[in-house]
């Protein structure tokens, strides 16, 4: 490359960097299957963009590939934050196709779903390397000390990346958000119902505080 061309390229790169818009924070929504990750992603997108991320179901591993929505702007308390939101498949250490047959699926369909679910978990693990922070969704009606939660929190702490715990499903009578708060007191936590919208404004304030 000639010196003149090199100079021109460097000059162009310098000005590109100088006027580049602030990058959106790339935030992954993680958690075990059926914690309500996609319900939360849909809630965030509906509130701030008017559309949805994907379908939800009571059957585990409904989301089997990561979905990304770029440029979601959340405005709260006079501040705004730009996010790229990644809704990830539920993390698991085991997937048995027989479990899907309990939902009256044919064997072939159950095996196909199980295979896709394993690929989804791999994709979710790979995304861990490419994020600026995580919203970890826990089901407040379940024991919070699952291996998935422990592994995700450990990874974020080791990478020194921000983590916000969402204690979901607080509209259920058996929900116990205090159990989650006591389990992981070192991280911020918000109790919500992604389905009903309970406490959702507090979640947006906490998102702006944690990832802004």
């Amino acid at each position: 490359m000639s010196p003149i061309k090199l100079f021109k390229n460097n000059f162009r790169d310098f000005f590109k960097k100088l006027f580049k818009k602030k990058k959106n924070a790339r935030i992954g929504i993680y958690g075990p299957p059926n914690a309500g990750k996609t319900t939360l992603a849909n809630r965030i997108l509906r509130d701030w963009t008017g559309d949805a991320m994907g379908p939800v179901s009571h059957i585990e591993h409904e989301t089997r590939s990561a979905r990304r929505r770029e440029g979601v702007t959340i405005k709260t308390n006079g501040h705004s934050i730009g996010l790229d939101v990644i809704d990830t498949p539920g993390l698991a250490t085991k997937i048995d196709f027989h479990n899907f047959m309990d939902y009256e699926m044919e064997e072939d369909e159950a095996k196909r779903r199980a295979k896709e679910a394993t690929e989804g978990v791999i994709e979710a693990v790979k995304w861990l390397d490419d994020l600026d922070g995580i919203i970890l969704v826990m089901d407040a009606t379940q024991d919070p000390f699952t291996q998935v939660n422990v592994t995700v929190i450990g990874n974020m702490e080791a990478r020194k990346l921000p983590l916000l715990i969402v204690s979901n499903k607080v509209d259920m009578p058996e929900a116990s958000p205090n159990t989650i708060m006591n389990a992981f007191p070192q991280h911020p936590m918000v109790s919500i119902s992604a389905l009903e919208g309970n406490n959702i404004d507090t979640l947006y304030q906490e998102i702006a505080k944690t990832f802004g």
Partner: protein
Amino acid sequence: MDLISEERLSGMNPVEKVRFIIDEVKKDKVLVLEKGLTPDEEANLIEMTMTKIQPDGFSGIEMESYPAQSGNSIINKLFNKGGHRTRLTIIGPANQLKTLKKDRDLITTLLSSKE
């Protein structure tokens, strides 16, 4: 069940560790790791487990570890070290090892013979 000492695993690199664990668990062994795995190794283990799952065969692993303890010593802070202390971990085939209860300092599991 094999109780794996810290020294046994410390000579392996992360990929070797994960391969060793998967190979042993696929032989229906339950492993208790004295020192556990780093969060990154746990994530790699989950990833590799998914690649090994087969219908009517290996359905995955049950893994339980305590939350890692972070070191807040001045040395760790000075040198910006994560200071994560990994802890005892139990790993076995999903069809033989079942976690009954887990909290910050107690893991209760049920170990059964192969189904």
